[in-house]
């Protein structure tokens, strides 16, 4: 149980920090360019809703840890972490951004960048989680 809690807390910090790096840093210019479409909240409005982001990342961290621990095997931890990160990307990253692109005015090149950067994020998280639970 202690390992689960420690893992979930580390995953929460990682997902929040890496998401901030991806969406608040690497993709900041793309999002700013999309503000005119009206499909995104102004930064000040988003900041006032930051607590929802905390809840979202906390829930994701718990789910990410829970599912990994359920399927962990006695195989090398690095490969397991990478494989798990890719599986989560296929489940929770690729489809989400593809569908955003289809139903909201997110340009395709932004969706591709979101997919690539967020896939790297969850693979890094998978490796870190596998190392913690090696």
């Amino acid at each position, binding site marked *: 149980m202690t390992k689960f809690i420690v893992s979930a807390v580390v995953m929460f910090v990682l997902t929040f920090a890496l998401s901030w790096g991806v969406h608040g840093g690497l993709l900041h210019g793309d999002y700013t360019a999309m503000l005119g479409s009206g499909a995104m909240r102004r930064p000040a409005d988003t900041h006032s809703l930051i607590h929802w982001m905390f809840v979202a990342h906390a829930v994701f961290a718990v789910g990410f840890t829970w599912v990994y621990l359920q399927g962990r095997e006695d195989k090398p931890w690095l490969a397991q972490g990478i494989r798990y990160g890719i599986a989560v990307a296929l489940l929770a990253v690729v*489809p989400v951004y593809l569908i955003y692109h289809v139903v909201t005015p997110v340009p395709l090149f932004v969706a591709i960048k979101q997919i690539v950067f967020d896939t790297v994020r969850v693979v890094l998280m998978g490796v870190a989680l596998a190392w913690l639970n090696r």
Partner: protein
Amino acid sequence: MRWRFAISVALIFVMLFLLGWLVHDGLLRADYERIRPLLRPMDETRARILYVFLAQLCSAAAMVWIYRQGKDDRPWLGQGIRYGIAVAVLTTIPVNLVQYAVMPLPLDFVLKRMCYDVAAVVLMGIVVAFINRGAVKGHG
């Protein structure tokens, strides 16, 4: 056991479309009309339908692969419900909450959509568990 994997992916792929259509085009139709200005025009969405197929295929394959990786010898129904909740915790709930924070969507709409989508993934978790009941752990 590859056939179980293939059948599971095919069935979940179909369920994603049917349940997605029921929830988003049926139960939430009026809600989507309210936020229509935030969305692409329908003709642009239809022109991108191939991306939806690709997205649902990725979801279906990953959902089945992860389930088979973590399944154990306990009763399949409990495992399916638990797995559906885990997938909701991993995708549906955080995605909806983040979308609420970054898009000007009404909270009642986001909560309603989240509840319907959670019910849908729990149902899919049960179906995956049923098809893969008693199957050997692993994807191949």
